Structures are given as structure tokens and as C-alpha cells.
């Protein structure tokens, strides 16, 4: 059986990611944990952006729901199970996304962007100001958790993150990717793309435009919460910085960098961003300047991002062979 290019890319990527802890020093393996967090969140973000055509500038809010959810589950309620925490955070995120999305999806373009930004800022202020509940600027502690009921107590935190938790996150990314793949290739996914291209026409073909947008918004929020739990768990802290609007901007940056027109674009974007940021930070204190230049270059020269370059490269390679 011949594999599709998407399946080949997915399997190749998984093999490489699975091999990393064997060849990389623990520092770099640990660096990959935020990659998994962002990659899962971005899969959801891109359902909204790439497939539904809604650019959210407040999506870090759902990273925050995940991280603070983890803090509440472990620190306040005393749960130890990572899976239970994931479920609770995803459910909380869906509950918050429903009313927020209900208000936002009535608008598109800049109005949708501004409205999501406003809700994101509102959530940030809440976390920042309600010191007694959220710990304000010092955040809330996220305690260590069991994965699949196993404590791995003989590992210290760094070993745990670079070992069992790394593979756990890889499995989560695969599951999230599979779910998203099914979603975007379902009849529902087709309706999302149809309304993205032309909402008026889509309505006349029986597409429930608002309901579809809302569903995409809620699903993307659920993915965001999973990413947030991973991010919060890694640093052991739910921090209001994670919800600040620059974080939402960073999600947009990652999606554009990887290419939002490609299914794998967000994952590639998350990886490139994390590696780029790490390297640049060690090279220069002006790393933001370089990142900005890279973004400008991508938007102007390669609007389809890194995945777009890869697809084009493959096409040319195939063309010369034929």
C-alpha cells in the first residue's frame, strides 16, 4: 500500500521526535515540552484560523485556562492524575469558550480579532488583580502529577520531563493530531472551509454559519487548554504572563511561521519558533528584532510559511523527476 504524503510526513515526524531523547542532551529534550504544548494548542488555533478563517488575538486565554486549571486541580483540590486534570481543564475551557465564542463569532475579520483580544485582556486582568484567588503576578503553583497512574518517583523533575513525560506528550500530540485530522476531513470540516471562503454562499447551501464557527471556537479552546496544562506543568507554575496578549500574538506568529494553509503548518511553526527563539536568545539580546524580521520575511516572501516552502520544494523535486 502506498502511503499518502500526509501519512508519510506524520510517521517520519513521529519517528524523529521519538528518537530525540536518545540523541539529544536532556536540556534540549526539556525544551521540546513547550513545543508539544504549543503544537497541540496551535492545532486547535488553526482549526479556527486556517480552516474557519477567524483570526483570534485572545487565544492565550485558553492556554491560561489549562495552566490555571492544572493549578486548581493539583494545588487546591489535591488531584494527582494528569489525565483527570486534562479532562477538567478541557471541560472548563469548553464551558468558558461557549459564551465567549457565542458573542465573538457573530463578527469576522478585525472585529472578531479585537473582540477576542478584549476577552483575553479581561481574563488576564482577572488573573492579575484577584490576588486572593489567583495569586496575582506570582501565579499559582502546579504540583507534580502522575501520568497513567504512575508516579515515576525515582526520577527528579528534569529527568521526568525529559523521559516519560516527553513520550507522554508525544502521544498526546499524536492523539490531538489524529482528532484534528478527522475533524478537518469530515463533513463538518468541509462546511468550515466553505463558510471561510464565502459565508453568504455557504448559508444558501444550508451551512449553519454561526453554529459551525462556534463549534470551531469551542474545539480550538479545548485544544488550547491541553496545551496550557502541559505548559503550566512544565514550569510548575500558572503565570498570568501566559495569558497576556503578547502570548496570543506568539500563537499567531507560530501559525504564520509554520504556514496556516497546511495541516502540519502549526506543528512545524511551534517547533521552528521554539528552536529559533532558544538559539537567538543565546546569541543576542536583540532576539526579538531578529524574530520580527523573520516574520516580516515570511509574510512577504513565503506567505504559506515553512510548510509552504516544503510543499513547493517537494513539487519541484517531483517535477524534475517526471
Amino acid at each position, binding site marked *: 500500500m502506498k502511503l499518502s504524503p500526509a501519512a508519510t510526513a506524520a510517521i517520519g515526524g513521529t519517528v524523529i521526535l521519538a528518537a530525540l531523547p536518545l540523541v539529544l542532551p536532556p536540556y534540549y529534550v526539556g525544551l521540546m515540552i513547550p513545543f508539544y504544548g504549543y503544537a497541540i494548542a496551535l492545532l486547535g488555533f488553526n482549526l479556527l484560523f486556517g480552516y474557519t478563517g477567524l483570526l483570534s488575538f485572545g487565544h492565550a486565554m485558553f492556554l491560561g485556562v489549562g495552566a490555571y486549571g492544572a493549578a486548581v486541580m493539583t494545588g487546591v483540590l489535591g488531584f494527582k492524575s494528569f489525565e483527570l486534570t486534562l479532562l477538567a481543564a478541557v471541560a472548563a475551557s469548553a464551558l468558558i469558550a461557549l459564551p465567549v465564542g457565542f458573542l465573538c463569532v457573530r463578527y469576522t475579520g478585525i472585529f472578531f480579532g479585537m473582540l477576542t483580544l478584549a476577552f483575553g485582556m479581561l481574563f488576564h486582568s482577572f488573573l492579575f488583580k484577584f490576588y486572593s484567588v489567583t495569586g496575582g503576578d506570582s501565579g499559582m503553583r502546579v504540583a507534580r502529577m502522575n501520568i497513567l497512574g504512575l508516579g515515576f518517583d525515582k526520577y527528579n523533575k528534569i529527568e521526568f520531563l525529559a523521559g516519560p513525560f516527553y513520550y507522554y506528550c508525544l502521544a498526546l500530540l499524536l492523539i490531538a493530531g489524529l*482528532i484534528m485530522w*478527522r*475533524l478537518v*476531513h*469530515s*463533513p*463538518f*470540516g*468541509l*462546511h468550515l*472551509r*466553505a463558510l*471561510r*471562503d*464565502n459565508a*453568504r*454562499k*455557504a*448559508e*444558501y*447551501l*444550508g*451551512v*449553519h*454559519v454561526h453554529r*459551525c464557527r462556534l*463549534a470551531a471556537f469551542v474545539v480550538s479552546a479545548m485544544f488550547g487548554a491541553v496545551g496550557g496544562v502541559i505548559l503550566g506543568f512544565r514550569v510548575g507554575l500558572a503565570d498570568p504572563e501566559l495569558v497576556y496578549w503578547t502570548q496570543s500574538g506568539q500563537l499567531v506568529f507560530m501559525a504564520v511561521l509554520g504556514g496556516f494553509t497546511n495541516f502540519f503548518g502549526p506543528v512545524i511553526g511551534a517547533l521552528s519558533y521554539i528552536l529559533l527563539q532558544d538559539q537567538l536568545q543565546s546569541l543576542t539580546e536583540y532576539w526579538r528584532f531578529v524574530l520580527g524580521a523573520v516574520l516580516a520575511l515570511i509574510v512577504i516572501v513565503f506567505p504559506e510559511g515553512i510548510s509552504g516552502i516544503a510543499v513547493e520544494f517537494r513539487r519541484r523535486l517531483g517535477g524534475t523527476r517526471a
Partner: protein
Amino acid sequence: MTPLLETRGLGKAYGPFRALENVTMTVNEQELVSVVGPNGAGKTTLVNLLTGLLKPSEGEVRFMGADIAGIGPVALAERGLARAFQLIQIFPKLTTAETIAAAVVSRQNKRWRLFSSLSADGEVNARVREVADIFGLTHRLDTVTAALSQGEKKLLDVASAFALDPKVILLDEPTSGVATADKHGIMQTLIAAAKQAGVKAIVLVEHDMDLVAAYSSRIIALSAGQVLADLPPDRFFSDPHLIETVIGKRRGH
């Protein structure tokens, strides 16, 4: 027998401006009713009222006996009233097959199947092929619609509306933007497709009097927001005064 589509005393005002006044009309089974009139006569307003996009200021719109005033395009599509647009409306990044499939998914009520594979759905794909076949778009199924010719885009726009299996279809200048030589070809394709698809009646909004004369079973002429005439084509075209009112202003174009 209840008419498929009817309006009684229908009116729409925008502030002091009355775009449409006291329009009473019916569309019955097996009819192709053309709506004609000079620019600004209220044709587009009438279409938007008939398709539930606008709420009337007065009067009522009924589709198969039920009040449909302002219920919106989605609910209307579900009841069996479809619309194709004057300006071509496509999904630029979708393929021909996906465009038709979007309507088929609605029709087969599979829109909330979040995890089933669309490409593996034989029922949807069979219907997509059938519709593409009727409109001669089979060889274009995998083409991204932005790359289609103008004529093909127009056909696809209408084909996707047909894919809803509507009882009545409203065609708003289906041949606008198409070369004169192709107009009859497209109209014939549409009418044949409508018969094949079980469409019971067609409402045609059209400027081109050749087409109106050739295909209508009845002609409704609008002028300044009011019904000027509601006649079969032979009687309509035997009244020179009427024709002048309806098309006179467009002679200069």
C-alpha cells in the same frame, strides 16, 4: 392547489424610500416565472424577500403554505427553496467536488458528523458525481474553483444550489457575465438539469429579453417597486408599451 411560492401585499421600505410596494404574485408547479424590470425596479429586493434574507415591512411571503418571511437562507434551503446569485458566488479555495459536496452534506443532514471521513462517504460522493454530470462538470471535479472559467463558475454556482434538491430554485440573472453565445446553452443546461433533479418551479430574474421570451411560462414585470404586469409571454410581448417600460432604459447599455 396551494401555490409553491406566493406573496400577498408584499412591501419593503427603507426609511421613506419604498423599494417594493403591494406585490402579490404566485409561482405554481411546472412554471418558469420570469421577473423583469428596469434597474431599480425592486427585483433584487423581491429576490431577497423571497429568499428570506430580508424581513418584509408589510405583507407576507409563503412557501408551500408556510410563512417564510425573514427566516433566513439556511432554514429556507432546508425547506427546499434554493438560490443562485447574480454575481458568481464560489468558494475560491475549494474544488468543484467540495463545493457540490457542501450542499450535499446539508441535504443529507450530515453536517454535524465531526469525525466521519467525507472522502469515504459513498452516498455523498455518488450524489456529487451525479450533480456534476448533469452540469457537465465531471472533468473539473478536482479543480480548485478559482481556476474555473467564468461559464464553469456560473454553472458550479447553480449546480451547488441544485445539489440541495430544491423544490423551487431562484436564479438571479444566471447568464450575467457569460458570453452572449453561451447564454442559451447555459439556460438549456439549467432547465434540463432542473427537470432531471425534480425541481418543480423556477423563478428567473433576467435582463435579457431573448432568454425571457424563450423560456418563460409567465412574466412578472416590476416598475418602481410595483407589479406592472403578470402575463404569459405571448401577451406580454404583444404589448409594445409594456416592453418599452421594462427594457427602454436599458437600450443604451
